[in-house]
Structures are given as structure tokens and as C-alpha cells.
């Protein structure tokens, strides 16, 4: 058999490939499958949060802010528990980033609040002296794209079985359900209801008026996304 293989380089190469691929298969795949499963307490993004995530991507926040806390004492002191791979299970794509001009944001929802973000996005230097972050004033007038977020929800729900409208286990043993609308109108209504909760803690009268009249400025979606990062 080996004589035959030695005389047939092509099948020899196939044999080498199969042998090495098998090793990779049994070493990498099970570990990867285990690590990429969502950790308990990781929930899918709601419609508004997903719209906020798109605002985050659109404005290239990830160029300056990472979302990956490394296991070093200095980092966990500042940002909280180090990141686990399963926490990115619903991130498509993940926004780890590779450069920190600003601080890491992976758990920003734990230590910043709606009103802080509202002040900060309007004029970062007024809140953090010396900050070089630019002002994002247009987010207070531009409207968030809820339809696209809903389309994304539908897609990941259908093709990747992201558990919308299903109980998701939480850290304290309870379960929670992240709702996804059945139609565009329903999704918009859900997002608006969530936006109304957010603006309760906001002060900008124009944003409050916009939400009261059924429009959702980008800043509200972005804050919903920021608050969901825990």
C-alpha cells in the first residue's frame, strides 16, 4: 500500500491532507463549538439595540474603541470582568477593534448611564476634560434605521437560529425573552416602546419631542446599544 502511495504523489498528498485535517478536526472543532455558544446571560439584541449597533458601525466607533477586555488586573479593574468568547455569540460581525484611542466599551453599560451618554455624545470635552473625541451632534437629529435592524433580526433568526421570542437563560437562574416583531410595523412599534423608556432619562427636549411623535433619533438607538453592553 505504501509503495503504491509513494509512486502516486497526488494520492500521497491527499493522504497527508486527510491525516492532518483529522487532527485539526478533533482538536479544534469541539473546543470551538463549546466556546462560541452564548454564555448564560448573553441575550440577542433587541430591534432598537441592533439599530444602535448599526449607528455604532456607521460612525466607525470601533476605530477608536475596542470591545474586548483582556485578562489583566489593570484592565479588569477599569472595565470589569474579562471578555468571554461566548459573549460575542450574537455579534455579527464582532466589534473587538484593535486600537484604543478611547477606552474599551465592552461593559460600558455597567458604569455609564443614559444621561451621561446624552451629555457626552453632544460634547465629549465638556464631560471629560481633555477628551479628543469629536462631537456627534448629528445623531440627535438623524433618524435610526429600524427597518434595516428588523431585516437583520429576521435574517439571523432564520439562518442562525438566534433565539428571538424564546426564553433565554439569565445569570440569576431566571429567563428573559427578547421580542422580535412579526412585521415591519410591529418591529417599529417595539422599538418605539423601548425608545420611550430610554428618553425618560434624557433631557434634550428635541429628542423627547421626536420620540413622542413616533420618530427615533440615532442617539436613542445608540444609547440603547451602549446600555446593553454589560
Amino acid at each position: 500500500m505504501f509503495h503504491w502511495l509513494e509512486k502516486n504523489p497526488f494520492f500521497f498528498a491527499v493522504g497527508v491532507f486527510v491525516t492532518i485535517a483529522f487532527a485539526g478536526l478533533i482538536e479544534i472543532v469541539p473546543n470551538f463549538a463549546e466556546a462560541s455558544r452564548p454564555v448564560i446571560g448573553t441575550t440577542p439584541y433587541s430591534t432598537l439595540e441592533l439599530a444602535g449597533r448599526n449607528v455604532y458601525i456607521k460612525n466607525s466607533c470601533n476605530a477608536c474603541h475596542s470591545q474586548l477586555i483582556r485578562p489583566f488586573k489593570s484592565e479588569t479593574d477599569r472595565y470589569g470582568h474579562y471578555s468571554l468568547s461566548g459573549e460575542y455569540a450574537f455579534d455579527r460581525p464582532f466589534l473587538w477593534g484593535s486600537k484604543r484611542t478611547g477606552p474599551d466599551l465592552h461593559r460600558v453599560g455597567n458604569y455609564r448611564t443614559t444621561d451621561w451618554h446624552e451629555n457626552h455624545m453632544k460634547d465629549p470635552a465638556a464631560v471629560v476634560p481633555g477628551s479628543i473625541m469629536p462631537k456627534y451632534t448629528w445623531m440627535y437629529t438623524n433618524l435610526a434605521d429600524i427597518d434595516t435592524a428588523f431585516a437583520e433580526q429576521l435574517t439571523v433568526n432564520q439562518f442562525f437560529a438566534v433565539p428571538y421570542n424564546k426564553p433565554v437563560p439569565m445569570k440569576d437562574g431566571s429567563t428573559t425573552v427578547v421580542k422580535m416583531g412579526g412585521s415591519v410595523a410591529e418591529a417599529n412599534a417595539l422599538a418605539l416602546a423601548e425608545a420611550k423608556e430610554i428618553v425618560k432619562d434624557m433631557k434634550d427636549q428635541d429628542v423627547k419631542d421626536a420620540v413622542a411623535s413616533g420618530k427615533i433619533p440615532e442617539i436613542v438607538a445608540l444609547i440603547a446599544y451602549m446600555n446593553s453592553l454589560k
Partner: protein
Amino acid sequence: MNKLYLWGIIVTIAMLGATYLSVGMSKGGINGDIVNMLAIAGAVALVIITVFVVIKYVRQMQTDTAEGELADESWDNIGEYKNPLPFGWAIMFLGTMIWGMWYMLVGYPVNAYSQIGEYNEDVAAHNAKFNTQYASITGDRLIEMGESVFLAECKVCHGLSADGIDGKAANLNVRLEANTVKHVIENGSNNQLLGSEMPMPDRNGLFNMNSGALITDAEIAAVSAYVADGMDASNKAGAEAFAGVCASCHGPDGMGMEYVAPSIAAFNPTLVTNVLNHGKKGVIGTMPAFERLNAKQKEAVGAYITSLSAK
């Protein structure tokens, strides 16, 4: 003489000369100290051994012919002798197998590097150091620690001088501001400032014991100013309202009562620690809890904030 030996002598002389020059011209010279002498002795030995070994094997390659019994197998007409493995190789081969077994069964499983393991060791070492160096500090050193924690964690909202950056967060240089007092009276409060649930009723549950009626708008305005001004007795209406409505829980001097109501006259470390543990929701907005600070750090922040408004 064989050309090979001639080359050997030339290379030896050149290398020894280079060694002599480089050591001799360096600081201290050849006889400068024991390290230089040892180094040159080592270099001489190395040069001689190297040249000797190279000559030996080059000669062997020039003159040796292979002999022995050929193996049956022929790989594309390349034959192989059945000579036994050189002894040194056999020892190394066996040694590699033994090491391999040790590494697979003991070496790797026991000593494998783990990033999280290193992190856990780091944290444990840090905590141990913290406990020996800082666990029992008091007074000014505690306030100093509080300031450093404040500058790392709190200044982002409360500002460098703890003034709350124009109303974006609470001004910690005073215990309470009038709009906060007013908001709490009108809406009640449930911030666990005592460390446990002890909600304060809203205005529909606050009676003036002197008049027996619910607190009025005028009284709210007066008592808000009174509390915010540090309980200045010249504000008669405020003092009266305070005595009638607030004093029964917060004490006549506003210093609070254990298990009943927090101090509204001055900060104290326990109060601040409770805010850090539970967060806070008020007229300005929501403050998140800061549970990742350790108990001593929370106490220190409390001491620092208390020191800001201490008279």
C-alpha cells in the same frame, strides 16, 4: 603538508589573533581581570576544538567509503546498509521517547500555561499586597486613597473638582442641593442609602406634625432651601417645616438615625459606600453601582467625599 592542515593552521591563527585583539583592546586588557582571562582561555579552547573537529570530519568525507550488508528494500534505486545505529544516536532517540512520554503525561498537563491562571495569580498577589499595605489605613492616608479612586472612577461624571460639571452629576462639595431636596420630597426616594430597603414616601405621605396637614408647596420650597443652605436658622419657615416634617426621621439636626433615615446634613463614609453598592436614581439622572471597588476603596471614597464638605 596536506592543504587541509595548512588551512587549519591559518584559520586557527586568524581566529586566535582576532580574539587576542578584541580582548586585548577592550577595557582592562588580557590580564585586567579574571573574567577576561577566563574568556580568552575559553575562546582558545573553542577555536582549537572547532578546527580539530572540522579537519577530522572533512578528512573522513574525503577518504571514507561505506561498507556493510545492503538492506532488501530499495527506494528508487537508493540502497541502505543494515549497519547498527551509532550508539549516541540510539541514546538520544530513546531519551526523546522518554521525554515525550513525560511531557505528554506530566509535563504539559501539570505545567501548562494558562492565561486565566496567570491572571488569577496576578489578582491574588495584588489583593494580598493590598491587604498588607492598605487594609488598615485611616485618616489622611484613607482620604488620599479616596482621592485617587475618585480621580480614576468618579471624575468622569462628577468632575475633577467634584462639582458635578454644571449639573451633569451631583455636586459633592455640598451634601444636597435645593432641586435634589425638592425632587425627593415630591417623588419619594428608594435609593437604599442605609444599605437596605427603607423607602421614603413622596409628598402624599409626608405630614407636618405641627399642623397635621400634608406638606405644602411653600413648605417644600422653604425646607429645600433650608437643607441646601446647611440648616441656617435664619430661614424660619424652612426650620419650622423641617422640624415638623423631616426631623422625626432625619433627626432635629438632620444627621439621620440608624436604620431609619440617612444623614441629610453631612456626608459620611457609610452613606457613600451604600451609594456605591446600590447606585442611585434622582433628579439629575441615574448613577450606576460600582461594585468592582473593594470595601476599603469604597470606604476611602466615602472619606474623601466627606472631607470635601467638612467644615
